[in-house]
């Protein structure tokens, strides 16, 4: 009998311990459409690499869910003169290597960002970072710049002691940025983030383990993340439905309903900030230089219908670049589908009989890209514009896009600065090879007023004034029908119900997995 009791209590103890650990230390099996291409956050500026950076590194400040900024490694900041912003760093923050975070790391990181091919454009306004003392650092810009804090979300301090010196394996410096070959930084990391990379088989799986000395105690309870890339959407969904993984992103539009209806799963969607547009090349087609023709096409395109029917409600119809929440979002601009008005405009422009033109679109870059382009072709035929469409995979598309081989070209854009001016700089300003402005303006729309206002907005540090300028640019683009805006693609995440998924996601699509709590 005694033995029996001992045994029973042993079993009980073991179950309790097992149960206890499952509450405190949880493993997250995560499936994304791709895995990080490198462990070096500066090797590529892409959503995937930024998602990785938020797991293994910490930025100075980060976006909160409502679009505001939260202090992370910088506890507070102040502008000390028009071109200098001072950041006070948190004390006692440890890197994964054990080194302590200091102002020198920020100096090192900014210098490295300016060397990175992908980031140097983004940081061109910054001249340098200067260490004031061990935990205070000044970011200095060339001229007054309204987006210093937005850019600070991209500064994920790297451990400069860890990344300095010569690497044995290739005889190069450890901090060198190499895209296509071995480099120390591509295969080793030391950040301050909530997770350390403990195992990585590229394209197969990456294992992250919670960093024991993480500075922020008020975060989630995930002790380990196993990230598997599953590129096929149906397989990704099946993996979640069968319980093989706990969290997937993105969820394909065709399976949203199914995930939503499944017990034990939660689906979180959000209107995104990537605008999808068609650009009408005025240099190739004299017709498109006529604002009336462009307006007619904008009136003839039913973006509400496309969002509902083709995108299955998984998109927000757009009439401008800036999504809601951006400084430049102009609430007065609404989708304007009106076929009668479109026909009238074509008549006024003298193209009552229509004309024919060519168009290209990618078929694996944006959600339903080829289908949307086909719908556009049908809609344009209603105003007698005969469009010959060619779609192709993204690997081939961008060369064709750059060469401007067709009269109408599709492009989607996400603003890296989370700010409206970025759209204008790349998509709507007059193309200029010298400055790189209008680099993705294949419509060749050129309006000096738009250029002037965009540059003025970049130098304006008063947010209220800036917002007025940016909104007026959207108005000009809308009135001119500078391009055809389609919609903002929605974002989606799905996970098991026992976690606070809703709280960690945001419109940038950088889930803060460090804050994830699994019950």
């Amino acid at each position, binding site marked *: 009998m005694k033995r029996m009791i001992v045994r029973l209590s042993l079993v009980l103890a073991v179950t309790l311990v097992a149960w206890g650990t499952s509450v405190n230390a949880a493993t997250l099996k995560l499936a994304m459409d791709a895995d990080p291409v490198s462990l070096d956050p500066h090797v590529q500026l892409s959503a995937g690499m930024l998602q990785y950076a938020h797991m293994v590194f910490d930025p100075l400040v980060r976006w909160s869910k409502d679009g505001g900024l939260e202090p992370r490694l910088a506890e507070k900041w102040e502008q000390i003169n028009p071109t200098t912003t001072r950041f006070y760093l948190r004390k006692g923050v440890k890197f994964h290597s054990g080194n302590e975070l200091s102002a020198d790391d920020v100096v090192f990181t900014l210098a490295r960002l300016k060397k990175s091919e992908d980031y140097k454009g983004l940081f061109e306004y910054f001249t340098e970072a200067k260490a004031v003392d061990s935990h205070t650092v000044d970011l200095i810009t060339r001229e007054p710049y309204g987006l210093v804090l937005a850019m600070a979300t991209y500064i994920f301090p790297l451990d400069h002691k860890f990344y300095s010196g010569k690497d044995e394996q290739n005889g190069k410096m450890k901090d060198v940025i190499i895209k*296509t070959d071995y480099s120390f930084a591509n295969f080793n990391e030391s950040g301050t983030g909530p997770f350390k990379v403990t195992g990585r088989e*590229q*394209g197969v799986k990456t294992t992250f383990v919670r960093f024991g000395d993480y500075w922020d105690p008020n975060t989630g309870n995930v002790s380990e993340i196993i990230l598997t890339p599953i590129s096929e959407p149906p397989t990704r969904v099946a993996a979640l439905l*069968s319980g093989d993984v706990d969290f997937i992103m993105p969820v394909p539009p065709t399976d949203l309903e199914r995930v939503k209806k499944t017990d034990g799963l939660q689906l979180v969607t959000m209107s995104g900030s990537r605008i999808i547009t068609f650009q009408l090349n005025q240099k190739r087609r004299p017709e498109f230089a006529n604002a009336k023709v462009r307006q007619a096409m904008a009136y003839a395109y039913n973006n509400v219908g496309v969002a509902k029917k083709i995108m299955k409600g998984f998109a927000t119809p757009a009439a401008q670049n800036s999504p809601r929440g951006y400084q430049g979002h102009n609430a007065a601009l609404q989708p304007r589908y009106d076929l009668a008005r479109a026909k009238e405009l074509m008549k006024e422009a003298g193209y009552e009989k229509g004309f024919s033109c060519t168009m290209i679109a990618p078929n694996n870059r944006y959600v339903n890209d080829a289908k949307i382009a086909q719908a556009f072709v049908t809609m344009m035929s209603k105003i007698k514009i005969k469009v010959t469409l060619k779609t192709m995979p993204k690997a081939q598309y*961008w060369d064709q896009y750059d060469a401007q081989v067709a009269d109408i070209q599709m492009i989607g854009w996400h603003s890296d600065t989370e700010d409206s001016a970025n759209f204008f700089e790349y998509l709507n300003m007059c193309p200029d090879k010298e400055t790189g402005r209008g680099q993705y303006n294949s419509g060749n729309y050129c309006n000096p007023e738009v250029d002037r206002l965009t540059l003025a907005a970049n130098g304006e540090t008063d947010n209220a004034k800036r917002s007025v300028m940016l909104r007026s640019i959207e108005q000009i683009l809308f009135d001119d029908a500078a391009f055809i805006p389609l919609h903002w693609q929605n974002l989606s995440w799905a996970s098991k119900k026992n976690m606070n998924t809703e709280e960690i996601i945001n419109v940038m699509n950088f889930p803060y997995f460090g804050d994830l709590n699994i019950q």
Partner: protein
Amino acid sequence: MFAFTVRRVAQAVLVMLIISLIGFSIKHNFGDPVRELVGERVTPQERQQIRDQLGLNDPFMVQYGRFLKSAVHGDLGRSFFFKKPVTEVILAKAPATLELVFCASLIVILLSVPLGIYSAIHPRRLLSRLIMGVSIVGVSMPVFLTAILLIYIFSVELGWLPSFGRGETVQLFGFWDSGLLTRDGLRHLLMPSVALSSIMLPLFIRLIRSEMMEVLETEYVKFAWAKGLRPRRVWYVHAFKNTLLPVITVGGVQLGIMVAFTILTETVFQWQGMGSMFIESVERADTALMVSYIVVVGFIFVVVNTLVDLIYGLVNPTVRIAGRK
């Protein structure tokens, strides 16, 4: 035998040269690898610089010559995406694909032979008709559909089998990651192999059935019956052996095709082998990896066909291998 081997090696080299030339000449149509390496903000000038550094701007023959020269030294180039030599990437991925093909072939052989024989011997029985009916469905269903159906039935609805990946693997001989030795690995292997075998299995059942039926009508079988041999001996020894000849010929070619079909199966099951690696390398325009995959698969084709020719001689001594006088 020696002459045969020499001739085969020479043929193999020629085939692979042609394959590499074709692979190399189409690689430009897959787009610019640099695009996949950089973010959207990078200017055309900077992209041009990267292309120069990677030697992508050199004339076609210069690039091809460079490729051949290092290929002779066993270096097929570097994968931009994996940041490693291509041979290393392919060697790491090959075990997954080969194990998958091996298991699928095993399923095909173990099932098609008894089912084919049975339906040839008893063509009118209900079971035979059922086998034929199901095989029609199997042969007309695309692999990816079979694969997705399997996932939905066995992973999502029943929850019996894992839906993706290879599971737990064991490293053998220091480089071969095998999923055949762990229970978890085998569980992961089951559905992909069934899906992959689903295209070949019906084909083989039908092939064996029709060949066998034909053989059963021949004079020597009739003579065997007349001699009063036991049915088993007539069916399984005398008739079946002669059925095998065409089956082996087709089998050799089909095994190669099976390697090609792994592309679909691996993509659906997120099976980390050469097939999914190839599709991804096409999407990323990772050209060195793409061309090398084509060359390696070409090599496998040549090797398999050579083996088939050898086995042919063993099964039927009257067939003389070309080159043996």
